[in-house]
């Protein structure tokens, strides 16, 4: 950089650049504040903006529409009483969804898991047939990007929704 004589100092001070830099700095601070507010409300996962629910009885799924890679999260699945009368719940996940997750824990544990070409079916025993049942899948997303998820009951409806996984 070029030195200039200012008073008795040889220095590469650049006041016009400095003023622009200060202005840019203030704008960047505002951007940081927006990021913090966005983080608090769940724009980057884990918050009110990220929490979502899809479906209606007999199959309702609560999930995080905005997630982060390798961040622990959960599908909370509620199966209505009408679908539990047989004493069993057969819940399927699309394999292209399961391929993008690392499943940590399933509660309750499935009695049986049946692998298929496009779907994997988890079979759960119901405590009281005819009463609603809750199933949780704790998992960590393993791929970033936009994912189309499909989950359904073998005997009943399918739920499709979109999740975004941030790096």
């Amino acid at each position, binding site marked *: *950089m*070029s030195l200039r004589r*200012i*008073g*008795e*100092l040889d*220095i*590469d*001070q*650049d006041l016009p*650049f*400095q003023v622009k*830099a*200060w202005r*840019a*700095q203030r704008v*960047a*601070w505002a951007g*940081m504040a927006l990021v913090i507010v966005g983080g608090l409300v769940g724009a980057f996962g884990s918050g009110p903006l990220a929490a979502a629910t899809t479906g209606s009885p007999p199959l309702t799924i609560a999930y995080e529409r905005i997630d982060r890679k*390798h961040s622990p999260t959960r599908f909370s699945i509620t199966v209505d009483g009408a679908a539990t009368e047989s004493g069993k719940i057969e819940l399927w996940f699309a394999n292209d969804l399961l391929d993008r997750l690392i499943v940590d824990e399933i509660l309750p544990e499935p009695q049986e898991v049946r692998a298929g070409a496009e779907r994997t079916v988890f079979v759960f025993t119901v405590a009281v047939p005819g009463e609603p049942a809750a199933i949780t899948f704790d998992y960590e997303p393993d791929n970033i990007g936009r994912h189309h998820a499909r989950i359904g009951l073998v005997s009943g409806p399918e739920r499709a929704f979109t999740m975004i996984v941030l790096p």
Partner: protein
Amino acid sequence: MDAITRAAIVYATLLVLFRVVGKRSLAETTTFDVVLLLIISESIQQALVDDDNSMTNALLLVITLLGLDVGLSLLNGRWTLFDKLVDDVPLILIDDGTVMTARLRKARIDLADIMQQARQTQGLERIEQIKYAVLERSGGITIIPRAPS
């Protein structure tokens, strides 16, 4: 590719963030600032390493980060504007005894910071003994005392 991409993104993000936060944040050495830098490094470390604890991944990350640093220094040497954007420019805070109050405010420095530096480096006692005070690119403050009369 993943390790190199992560390293490049983290390097660029930290460069921009620390540039935006202001150079004094790096130059100050209070206990809290040291703790804050340690916390930042811990927060970033997991994002860099992810699940891959192999030596190959570690070496790729280190080489990428150092390589980017070398690349940046070469770009700084070639383009003055780039150098200014990355490393900033020095700023005279006291000009031949005159305190540049507006610049102090913009740079978020007060006279107490300048006097601390004056005492520590030059053993000065009063503002009037300072001829020039310059906020350097590094964030440090250089004190040039008046010649004793």
